[in-house]
């Protein structure tokens, strides 16, 4: 039964290294508004941690997105993420404003933060949800994949707040902006008794943008181990370019050094849901398909007629990538 003392939905607004609001926040917000309607229109709030003086920069964004309340912690020590500091403040806030639902993006930062907060709040956390809903009893029903995506489990939480994380690109942003007169509430950064025992020494950027091209790509061409070598990936890139697609890879291709980890799709890579996903020489292991089966249309090219990728493809082309693609490119020129 829902607990009357807890009300509203709180979403953690992660800032990227470049100080943008992470796109997963917009996705969570959109879903939260839908959940709020089912809960009779409860408040949808955000919490953000930033360097002193920075909140002004974000006020308009939060207003335009229609966030009811924004709780912010402003302090120079918060400029850089720290699990110790952030979990302490987020826990304090959740204890004070008692939301019934607390949502966090399942980015690496979110996955570092959320379990610590759940442990401190003595509440449950359902990770990597693919669906969030409100059941007839007014509780959060969080569905998440288990066993490498083969079995889905709908999980309820007895304690409050009910916590869930969702990976980027799992929810689509559908609603257009809806301006609200957002209330901004400054919270005291009380870190008494908290020692910071971890320290970032250095950061080496390995991809150009934090906003990965794959997040917004409508067409994705992905290559697997069957592309064999650099030549195969060159051909893949050429194919992608000719149709305006973004390239991605399976883990085996990444492990062979044919593609960077940042473009790996799947359980330990990214989740994408483009309009069209073209899987080239990818067998279709569940650990891969869990990251792309939400694509609107799937085309698979594979020499093995029994490859599992064909089970989830809309169009399966049984054949050799190295024969079909040059032929395709010839026709395009």
């Amino acid at each position: 039964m829902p607990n009357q003392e807890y009300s509203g939905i709180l979403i953690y607004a992660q800032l990227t290294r470049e100080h943008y609001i992470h796109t997963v926040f917009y996705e969570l917000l959109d879903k939260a508004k839908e959940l709020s309607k089912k809960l009779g229109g409860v408040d949808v709030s955000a919490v953000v941690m930033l360097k002193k003086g920075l909140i002004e920069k974000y006020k308009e964004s939060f207003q335009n997105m229609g966030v009811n309340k924004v709780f912010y912690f402003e302090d120079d020590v918060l400029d850089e993420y720290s699990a110790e500091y952030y979990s302490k403040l987020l826990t304090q806030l959740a204890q004070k404003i008692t939301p019934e639902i607390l949502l966090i993006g399942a980015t690496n930062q979110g996955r570092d933060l959320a379990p610590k907060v759940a442990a401190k709040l003595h509440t449950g956390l359902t990770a990597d949800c693919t669906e969030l809903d409100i059941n007839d009893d007014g509780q959060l029903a969080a569905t998440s994949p288990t066993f490498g995506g083969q079995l889905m489990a709908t999980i309820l939480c007895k304690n409050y707040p009910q916590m869930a994380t969702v990976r980027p690109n799992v929810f689509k942003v559908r609603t257009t902006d809806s301006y609200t007169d957002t209330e901004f509430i400054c919270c005291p950064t009380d870190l008494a008794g908290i020692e910071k025992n971890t320290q970032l020494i250095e950061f080496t950027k390995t991809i150009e943008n934090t906003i990965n091209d794959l997040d917004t790509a409508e067409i994705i061409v992905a290559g697997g181990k069957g592309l064999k070598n650099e030549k195969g990936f060159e051909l893949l890139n050429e194919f992608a370019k000719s149709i305006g697609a973004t390239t991605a890879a399976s883990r085996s291709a990444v492990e062979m050094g044919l593609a960077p980890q940042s473009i790996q799709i799947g359980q330990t890579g990214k989740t994408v849901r483009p309009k069209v996903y073209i899987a080239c020489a990818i067998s279709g292991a569940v650990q891969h398909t869990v990251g792309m089966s939400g694509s609107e249309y799937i085309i698979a090219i594979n020499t093995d007629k029994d490859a599992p990728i064909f089970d989830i493809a809309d169009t399966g082309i049984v054949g050799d990538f190295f024969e079909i693609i040059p032929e395709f490119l010839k026709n395009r020129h």
Partner: protein
Amino acid sequence: MIKIALCIKQVPDTTDIKWTEHNTIQREGVESVINPYDVYATEFALKIKSQAPDTYITVFTMGPEQAKDMLRKVLALGCDDAVLISDKKFAGSDTWATGLTISKSIEKIMPDFDLVVCGQFATDGDTAQTGVIIANFLNIPHVTFVKELTEFSEKALIVTRQMEDGIEKVRVNLPALVCIMKSDFEPKRALINGIIEADRKEIKTLTINDIGLKPEQTGIKGSPTFVKRAFRNLPSHNAQKYFLDPTESAKLLEEKLTSLGVIKNA
């Protein structure tokens, strides 16, 4: 001397799942394997030991009696001691309850530990939570998504972390917990005398009474979450397979991409 608590788990082999006709997972006859990320965690702990031979590694696992087989395998790789955390009252624990139970076990067996090493994910469900929860209950800092060990001393560890946009190099004061994402070393093979020694070693078993937890703090009762419904994730796409020669296949691809609006007819 560095004292390491290594936390590992046995999982069903998820690459080989069989279904009953009611679309539930067939549990009988499913092979159990060591969680792949825990192999990396083991390698990480052994790497420290190979550089500082007086390092002492105690392996912890929470699970049924059969998990002892896995513990013996890990002992054979060079770990010093193993503990099985096993009690009917632990059954049905979610990540919160599991984290609490394991942290209590570490405190009981190895109160003066320096480092706790876990895998980043488990392949059977709970995604990337347990390690961080253990660290919280032990009141120590954690570092997740660890890729490589750069440097260590008895006071601190320097590791790299694989983030979405690049690599972080992080220093953490000990005692601490690390979750290992990937290792760059080939898994070790057990040495023959390692296997013999491992078979002789006694594996301690901890029950709920040994770690001083109440039944309402662990297992189903102590878990904030519970599974309401589980169902098979069936593919929603209608596979249509074409067996054509390369020219025809290329033409088909062109047609499909045109009808999907990806390309315009050349």
